[in-house]
């Protein structure tokens, strides 16, 4: 019950939060542009236009969803400590786990709403442009579900940062660094290792696991339709497909649990 009360307040705050409005605009805008412009390269080759749009949106989501997740969560705890509102909250009969979970539910709802708006716009524009015949909606739902899992993972990572950082400014800096590492530098590092290895043991045994260990890459692997439009996707996608759907999903689902667990452990140590 207390968890719902916390979630309810967090949604009230989110309604007036600049980051939430930014997230909605970003997802809506980029999804629309990618859907309208994304069909150009395929011409009339007979590829499902929704699939083309989803491929583009997946590439975009790998960057945007972790960013939105971190933006929503980086000041969750440190912001309350800075403002001095946490001490009072903790004198009420509510546990730290309930506070964290309540905030998580609210943030996930906000993130899910932003993703849903983007995907709905994309589907609507595709139908408007190409008609609704022969469209396969399954990848759309798969993208939505995995987006939630990816978002949940980065919300959890944001809470860890928020519980460990002493000040909100520091937390925002760390959040940006984590984002850069996860969505850009990690892949670059792997790519460099692949090139150096030249198809050796690393490429065949270690690499697929390292790739799937990053939730952003697991998300990309799940949603990239490798057979149809792999040329549009990241070069890493094809090489990492070896880990399989089950492992990729496990990575995406375990990350939120692990991150939330660690965030809770860090939150418990805070003396407001």
């Amino acid at each position, binding site marked *: 019950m207390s968890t719902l009360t916390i979630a309810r307040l967090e949604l*009230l705050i989110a309604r007036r939060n600049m980051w939430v409005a930014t997230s909605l605009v970003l997802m809506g805008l980029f999804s629309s542009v990618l859907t309208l412009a994304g069909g150009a390269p395929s011409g009339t080759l007979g590829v499902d236009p929704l699939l083309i749009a989803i491929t583009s949106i997946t590439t975009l989501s790998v960057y945007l969803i972790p960013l939105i997740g971190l933006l929503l969560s980086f000041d969750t705890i440190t912001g309350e400590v800075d403002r001095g509102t946490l001490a009072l909250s903790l004198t009420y009969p*509510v546990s730290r786990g309930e506070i964290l979970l309540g905030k998580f539910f609210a943030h996930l709802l906000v993130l899910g709403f932003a993703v849903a708006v983007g995907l709905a716009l994309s589907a609507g524009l595709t139908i408007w442009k190409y008609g609704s015949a022969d469209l396969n909606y399954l990848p759309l739902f798969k993208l939505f579900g995995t987006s939630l899992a990816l978002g949940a993972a980065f919300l959890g990572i944001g809470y860890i940062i928020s519980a460990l950082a002493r000040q909100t400014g520091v937390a925002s800096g760390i959040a940006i660094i984590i984002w850069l590492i996860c969505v850009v530098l990690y892949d670059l590092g792997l790519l460099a290792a692949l090139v150096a290895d030249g198809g050796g043991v690393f490429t065949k045994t270690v690499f697929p696991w390292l790739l799937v260990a990053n939730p952003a890459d697991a998300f990309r692997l799940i949603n990239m339709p490798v057979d149809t439009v792999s040329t549009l996707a990241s070069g890493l996608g094809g090489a990492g497909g070896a880990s399989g759907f089950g492992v990729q999903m496990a990575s995406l689902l375990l990350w939120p649990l692990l991150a939330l667990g660690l965030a809770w452990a860090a939150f418990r140590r805070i003396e407001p």
Partner: protein
Amino acid sequence: MTVLGIDNVSKSYGDLHTVCDVSLKLDAGERVALLGHNGAGKTTLMRMVLGLTPLTSGQITVLGMAPGSRKARAAIGFLPESVAFNGTLTAREQLHHFARLKSVKTGTADELLERVGLTDAMNRKIRTYSKGMRQRIGLAQALLGQPRLALLDEPTSGLDPISRHEFYDIVDDLAKAGTAVLLSSHALTELETRTDRIAIMSKGRLLANDSLSALRKTARLPIKVEIRTTDETAQQVAAQLGGTRVNGASISLEVQQEEKVSLLGQITGLGGLVKDIDVTPASLEALYRYYSAPDPEKK
């Protein structure tokens, strides 16, 4: 009935001892003022009662329960020293939230907002509030659910004199309904008539814990007596009673409690020579300075 029991409680951060061996009890309906300089350990003591800060040694019980336990927290109303809220919320939204956390009807929250005089402003965002108005929301949330124990840390800071008066009226009502009230304040004069007991802390130690009259008795600080006469008779009166002349027509004397009645008898014997008398017992401020002074020999 003991609502709050603090037994030999200490708190240390390495070599820094913020609270040293403090014992204090609060019964239902008691109003106790906790006095002390900044850094005396008052806030740390309150935080330990709330379960926000762990104890180094000793024991605290709230209605027999461990501090910080769910039931203990449900029984406490707390107003922090510098109370803060999320500025994007309205006072009504914020108080409804706290009411839900305490399983209190939201209608009660509206009544409390009315009681602290915020009905007209309750749908405005808190960021537009003055410090005094925020303090009123703080007080309203501390009253939610008729707490058995109210911990009020510097509750009147930021309030104007009229609001302070209204605040103490609310505290009186709380105590009458059986709530034990522990409040800390720097505004000593307003506490004199509004509390049942005074506890004085200095450098983490509890130096005094008694009613105001008992503290006066123990401290043996002199009672000030000021007698007004006329320019012509002042010299004569001063010669008979002793004391020093102030402003030409007034005489100032200091006596101990046991000498007071005989002095008043002497003054009455002077008849028409005396125009007026003021008798002032040691103020709380003087008592506070006496008990919190570092020199132990004065006692």
